[in-house]
């Protein structure tokens, strides 16, 4: 799992901010602010974070659905953000996306067959064997050939999500960006879809970028997990070390909020104070310092860099681990 499939470098997306006749001081919303990470071939990279932290925006920028303000998405040695028009479309064949709401992401006027052959039509792939291809896709996602001539409204949410997945698989993609693919589904169906995704990954060698806000879902499916807060990636590591030993105070707070299905277990919860700051006016220095229980003076001034602090691929962006006297003292207190 060492081959890098996609490299995301210094990705930024700022919304608004254009001066106009009526608005001379518009607010720039920094939806994604300098995010870098790598996606390895065959892995599932989970991205978690609360609403508005920029995780979907990151996914859409990777899919070229949004144009990044700055930064690059490198795939097979090419920067995708530079490819436009026909080339961009061709490059996008290898990236597919699954959306959150399976009720809205299928055109209600098209039959399943039309929906599944649409990817071929768009990319000008020849028509022969279309029937067989559709049947194979349906089979792959656990549906039957006789479903092909039905309309989306005749299916349940889980089935529709299966159709969405089948559509994403039609062009044999390398990367599938799954933007909260199960959060609109019932819990019982969630696990079916997650297991289907895992099965497909095994069989087809897919790579997933799995965006979610549900920590237990991410734990179930991911190999590595990135935590985002207010447009920044604050921690990125493999699943085990993140769930066992979260380093960033925000991750610690998030994990402590996950309910445990055992009423006798007393958990020590880290309660965050205050509200999420506005992304149009993010705090100076570390974006988390306004709510961080361990905030130090330098957190207000310097923005911490996401770095591998111990050399074990556990990346964290926090001043607590920079080795200064103040942070050592704070860390000790935290452990006590």
């Amino acid at each position, binding site marked *: 799992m060492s081959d890098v499939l996609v490299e995301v470098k210094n990705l930024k997306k700022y919304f608004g901010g254009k001066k106009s006749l009526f608005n001379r001081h518009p607010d720039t919303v920094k939806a994604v602010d300098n995010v870098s990470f790598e996606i390895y071939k065959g892995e599932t990279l989970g991205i978690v974070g609360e609403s508005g932290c920029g995780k979907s925006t990151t996914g859409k920028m990777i*899919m070229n*659905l949004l144009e990044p303000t700055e930064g690059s998405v490198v795939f097979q040695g090419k920067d995708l953000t530079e490819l436009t028009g026909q080339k*961009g*479309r*061709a490059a*996008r*064949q290898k*990236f*597919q*996306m699954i*959306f959150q*709401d399976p009720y*809205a*992401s*299928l*055109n*209600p*006027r098209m*039959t399943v067959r039309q929906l599944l052959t*649409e*990817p071929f039509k*768009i*990319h000008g792939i020849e028509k022969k064997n279309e029937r067989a291809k559709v049947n194979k896709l349906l089979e792959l996602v*656990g*549906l*039957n050939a006789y*479903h092909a*001539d*039905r*309309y989306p409204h*005749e*299916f*349940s949410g*889980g*089935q529709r999500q299966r159709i*969405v997945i089948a*559509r994403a698989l039609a*062009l044999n993609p390398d990367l599938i960006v799954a933007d909260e693919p199960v959060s609109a589904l019932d819990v*019982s*169906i969630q*696990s*079916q879809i997650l*297991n289907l995704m895992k099965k497909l990954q095994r069989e087809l060698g897919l790579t997933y970028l799995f965006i979610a806000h549900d920590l237990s879902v991410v734990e179930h499916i991911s190999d590595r997990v990135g935590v985002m807060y207010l447009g920044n990636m604050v921690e990125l590591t493999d699943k085990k070390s993140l769930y066992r030993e979260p380093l960033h105070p925000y991750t610690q707070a998030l994990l402590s909020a996950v309910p445990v299905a055992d009423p006798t277990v007393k958990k020590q919860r880290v309660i965050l104070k205050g509200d999420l700051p506005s992304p149009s006016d993010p705090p100076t220095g570390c974006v988390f310092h306004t709510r961080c229980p361990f905030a130090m003076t330098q957190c207000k001034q310097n923005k911490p860099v996401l770095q591998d602090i111990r050399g074990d691929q556990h990346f964290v962006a926090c001043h607590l681990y920079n080795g200064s006297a103040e942070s050592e003292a704070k860390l000790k207190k935290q452990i006590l």
Partner: protein
Amino acid sequence: MTTIQENKVAATQPASPWREFWKKFKRQKLAFASAIFIVLLFIVALIGPWIAPFDYTKADYSQILQGPNDKHWLGTDAFGRDILSRILVGTRTTLLVGLSAVLAGAIIGTILGLLSGYYGKWIDSLIMRFCDVLLAFPGILLAIGIIAILGPGMINVVVAVGIFTIPMFARIVRSNTLVYKNSLYVEATRSLGAANLYIIFRHILPASFSSIIVYFTMRLGTAILTAASLSFLGLGAQPPSPEWGAMLSAGRDYLTTAPYITYFPGLAIMLTVLAFNLLGDGLRDALDPKVKD
């Protein structure tokens, strides 16, 4: 892993949108009757000259200004021409003018609306300001203005009515486009790598079809009425053409002595316009997904 079976779908006939529409439409009695009336109108338009009992141009001075009788069912006009025959023959002109005007306006308006809504920015501003200008005039006044420039005649009536139909369609289609271009399935299609034109014509336009069809039908009524009005004013069909508006105009002088000259063409216009409007209403209800059975 749960054992819930979510893969079983009751083995019923797939309910196509068309089947669904037909089911709902049949229930609208008035609209259904209007549809039948309109189909009859089109048949008359096709075969009118052959089923007319008399030659619609032939004057018979021994029979002038006759009331309805067993020979001339709807009476005769000041030249002794059979009114029923003239109405039957005139159906073709009336429908042809209405249809071609609305069709031209609808096609141009739809394309403008799609461009305006999808691309936004200056294209949108330009097209919408153009529509605002057209909409600022009352329809008939605009049509008279256009005829004043182009000169009277049936073709010019078609052009005039077509032009003042454009902004209506442009606006309706634009508002639909704005809704659908931000829908998730359009974004999903874009994520598959679809080009803008593909999205516009394969996803947004079909989604707007139901409003276009409804408005098209309603607009036909208005177009027929406007064309008749223009003919009545002497700007459209010229005598001896049996256009309904022109017949009204010709009968105007005998309104007190022989009112049936104007009654029957007027009635024909009224029924036709009413039928198109009722059909439009019915289509709207039948095509509206919110109206469930």
